[in-house]
């Protein structure tokens, strides 16, 4: 049993390491943070509610970049390994196919969760940056937190410069160092932003962030984990491009499943079957619940989490069955 645990950890760790050493992983993470940081600059109208558009756009960016990361990571790290031959090298060791498959999922899910931590911090900061209407004795008008905005926007670039120095000085791989440095820089920006007001004045430390964002971000992250399970199951039989395409199709259908199938569930068994089998991303997309000062109840997050766990386990069982019979050429 201990050997199985050690093997699982070694393979999952290697998968995560391989994933974050791929330049595409760094590009997607940096791209996601920069895009979220740029959202407040593009928002010209408030429609009577501070931060809504920034939040919604940031969650959407988190979701879409995560989709590409999950699809690409699953494609390269499982189907790519089968094609490249590294899977045959590992499976010639005393490793069961089920454990190999599960460890690949665990490694990818771990990277997706770290990516989600970065996206969540960027969303929190971006929402803070978005212009807000103030009416006080000292101030009457719109204020945008430009310091935080600048720090957030440039943190991926600074992370890359630091990673370059680390690579030059200590010969550590650039991409993985930059990936971790982005997360570290985001945490630093999150901490530092607590020392000043939106209008730039220094103040005693206080983190004034919209904590309602956490619940929605957790749900988006759970959706990405489910998507990783779907992607890795597909990649047991398909190459990277078909995996990416099928993931995108499932993503689209999963968003529309309530509209397309949900209405006909009572009348048609076929619709009922596909409604159950297809992942319903609407369960995880609750950004609208924050509108008008609303929030997402934690009990809902728990129920959605349960749905994510059950769905992921089901999909992974299918994947294990498929991979058990896959011939590793």
């Amino acid at each position, binding site marked *: 049993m201990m050997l199985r645990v050690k093997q699982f950890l070694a393979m999952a760790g*290697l998968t995560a390491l391989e994933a974050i050493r791929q330049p595409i992983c760094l590009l997607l993470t940096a791209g996601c943070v920069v895009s979220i940081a740029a959202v407040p600059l593009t928002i010209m109208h408030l429609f009577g509610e501070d931060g809504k558009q920034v939040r919604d756009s940031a969650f959407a960016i988190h979701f879409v970049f995560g989709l590409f990361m999950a699809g690409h990571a699953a494609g390269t790290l499982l189907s790519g390994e089968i094609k490249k031959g590294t899977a045959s090298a590992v*499976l010639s060791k005393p490793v069961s196919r089920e454990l190999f498959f599960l460890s690949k999922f665990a490694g990818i899910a771990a990277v997706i969760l770290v990516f989600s931590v970065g996206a969540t911090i960027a969303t929190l900061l971006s929402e803070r940056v978005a212009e807000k209407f103030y009416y006080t004795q000292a101030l009457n008008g719109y204020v945008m937190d430009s310091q935080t905005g600048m720090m957030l926007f440039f943190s991926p670039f600074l992370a890359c410069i630091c990673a370059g120095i680390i690579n030059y000085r200590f010969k550590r791989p650039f991409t993985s160092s930059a990936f971790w440095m982005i997360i570290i820089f985001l945490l630093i920006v999150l901490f530092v932003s607590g020392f000043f007001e939106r209008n730039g004045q220094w103040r005693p430390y206080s983190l004034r962030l919209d904590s309602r964002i956490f619940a929605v971000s957790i749900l988006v992250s759970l959706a990405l984990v489910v998507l990783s399970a779907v992607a890795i199951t597909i990649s047991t039989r398909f190459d990277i491009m078909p995996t990416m395409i099928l993931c995108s199709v499932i993503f689209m259908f999963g968003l529309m499943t309530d509209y397309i199938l949900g209405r006909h569930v009572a009348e048609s068994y076929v619709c009922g079957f596909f409604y159950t089998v297809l992942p319903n991303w609407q369960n995880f997309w609750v950004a609208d619940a924050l509108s008008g000062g609303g929030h997402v109840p934690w009990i809902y997050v728990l129920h959605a989490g349960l749905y994510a766990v059950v769905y992921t386990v089901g999909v992974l069982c299918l994947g294990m069955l498929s991979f058990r019979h896959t011939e590793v050429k």
Partner: protein
Amino acid sequence: MDMEKQAGAVIEVNNLTKVFKDFWRRPKVRAVDGLNLDIKKGEIFGLLGPNGSGKSTTIKILLGLLHATSGSVTVLGRSPRDVATKARIGYLPEESYLYNYLTPYETLNFYGSLFGLDGRVRRERIDQLLEMTGLKHAAGRSVGEFSKGMARRVGLAQALINDPELVILDEPTSGLDPVGCRQVKDLMITLAKRGKTIILSSHLLADVEDVCDRIAILYNGSIRAQGGVNQLLEKQESVRLTMPSLPPEVMRKVLELIRKEVGKEPQVDHPSMNLEQFFLEVVEKANRMASQQSGAAPTEMMADYLKK
């Protein structure tokens, strides 16, 4: 040793057939066709054949990576798909199949952990293997930056990290320089002396001839010739005598006698060193003078745990 070789079959293959199918499950290629093999403990067994003859497919079936269409296969007395059996096997694939973003140290550490080797043993073996393969100075570089020969050395090291009973080497000398080739051949001989069984698949006939006890020649998925190397290559109808240089008069007499008794013209030449031996001597001399290099360092060292 011969007694030991007779002791037990490490691999038994009976009437093995492998048919690859297309997307619609229709037969596409018959890669292996009614193959029979019986490989004994302590043997170095060579699998020869042109490209597409079924060598790699056979090896992958022995490792449980591919499923046989029909026939039976046992490896170390068990099914090749048995996970526990694989703990006793070392496999060097045809291409080195390494994780490009890992360093040689990380690669060996990863494979060592798959065998459940504890930290101390793993570190000792990694050090010895890196030393043996001449990669100690490149242990911190990504494998993706390596030349084919250097990647091959990492591949060889990972195949030996578990001190396997059965070593399956698919084209082990491909991409290696002559020093590396000789080292791999010496390694195989040493391992066989320790009672390890080795299956060698290679296109390089000279390598196979140098080290193998028995060979099988495959063509179109079936065995066309099988037996001991000497037995297959020996020309029973002629004899070679090697002796010190003879004075011209004595030589003339000997040749005359042979002509008279045998009735055919004998062939006379000087035995020569082969190119490999000559090359190794030149490199050895150069190595004594060399100070620094970026590739794999020539080394005669063999990992201690592989000698015990």
